[in-house]
């Protein structure tokens, strides 16, 4: 068994657009949950969320790139760039062939789905933009990461609801540890602050009115957030963290893997 090191990390989250912002907030015990900033807030009962503020897609991607990128892919790519830069790894070498890319996502390109289906069903549109499918498919984030970073090893998404990113990172860890690959790009992404998505979540009657208190006796529901987070893992590099166990089991009761 190989020893596995996390060689670089990146994150775009409601705390900010780098790992330093995230780490500082976690150390300070701050929450990123705040009032929902969406133009359709008056149609919702849910009033809070953890949105990524001030993420300007045009600062990260060209107009042509954006025609292919749902917001979940944008967040994933931006986080992956940070992680790869921090790792110092170059996947456009022999290493790329021996590198996996495994990303978790629960819903896929929800913003694209919501926007385009509304245009079709409600706004009288006669056709979809030609790149609607590659934007909305759940595999899009990992596809774009591999193209941009040059990895050519196993690449796939993991969809297991809120556990998606953890499962993806765990699988990447197992693949590096077993020697199936020499390195892995892994993490998770999600962005679903659309009217359709939020209404669907409301319908489940599980949304917290104030904040999220996971594992707390006084918990009263969940709060949606969005983020992209990536990490590069390889063996033989400087140790920053290690996981000795990874568990993929589920409870067997809930429709959502947890």
């Amino acid at each position: 068994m190989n020893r596995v090191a996390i060689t670089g990390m990146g994150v775009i989250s409601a705390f900010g657009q780098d790992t330093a912002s995230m780490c500082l907030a976690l150390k300070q015990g701050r929450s990123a949950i705040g009032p929902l900033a969406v133009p359709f807030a008056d149609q919702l009962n849910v009033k809070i969320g953890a949105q990524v503020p001030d993420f300007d897609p045009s600062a990260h991607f060209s107009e042509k790139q954006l025609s292919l990128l749902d917001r979940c892919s944008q967040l994933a790519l931006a986080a992956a760039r940070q992680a790869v830069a921090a790792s110092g790894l170059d996947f456009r070498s022999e290493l790329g062939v021996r590198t996996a890319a495994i990303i978790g996502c629960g819903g896929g390109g929800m913003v694209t789905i919501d926007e385009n289906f509304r245009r079709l069903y409600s706004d009288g549109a006669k056709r979809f933009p030609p790149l609607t499918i590659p934007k909305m498919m759940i595999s899009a984030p990992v596809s774009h990461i591999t193209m941009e970073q040059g990895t050519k090893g196993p690449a796939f998404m993991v969809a297991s609801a809120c556990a998606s990113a953890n499962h993806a990172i765990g699988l990447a860890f197992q693949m590096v540890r077993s020697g199936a690959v020499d390195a892995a790009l892994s993490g998770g992404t999600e962005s679903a602050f659309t009217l359709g998505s939020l209404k669907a979540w409301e319908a489940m009657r599980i949304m917290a009115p104030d904040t999220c208190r996971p594992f707390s006796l006084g918990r009263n529901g969940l709060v949606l957030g969005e983020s992209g987070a990536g990490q590069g893992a390889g063996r033989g590099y400087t140790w920053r963290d290690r996981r000795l166990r990874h568990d993929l089991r589920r409870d067997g009761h809930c429709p959502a893997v947890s």
Partner: protein
Amino acid sequence: MSDIESAIFDIVAQKAKLERSSLNHDTELSSIELDSIDILEIIFDIEEKFNISILYNANQSPGERGGFKTAGDVADFIKTQMNEGAQTV
């Protein structure tokens, strides 16, 4: 140049981020860095502009740029479709 051809060239120039005046019938798509995805988006923009449905199947149009070599090829294809009564939808 017909109004339709002019409108098509407007869309091609916009997609290539070029001055309309720098584009002519013989401008090669490779020289203005348009690829097969751009062709799809150009066809979509034309469908939207003229409220028509153009029968174009990328699988039946092999090549890096959807089987088109020049901007004029794109315009000719679309004009032919429209002359043959491209479906209005």
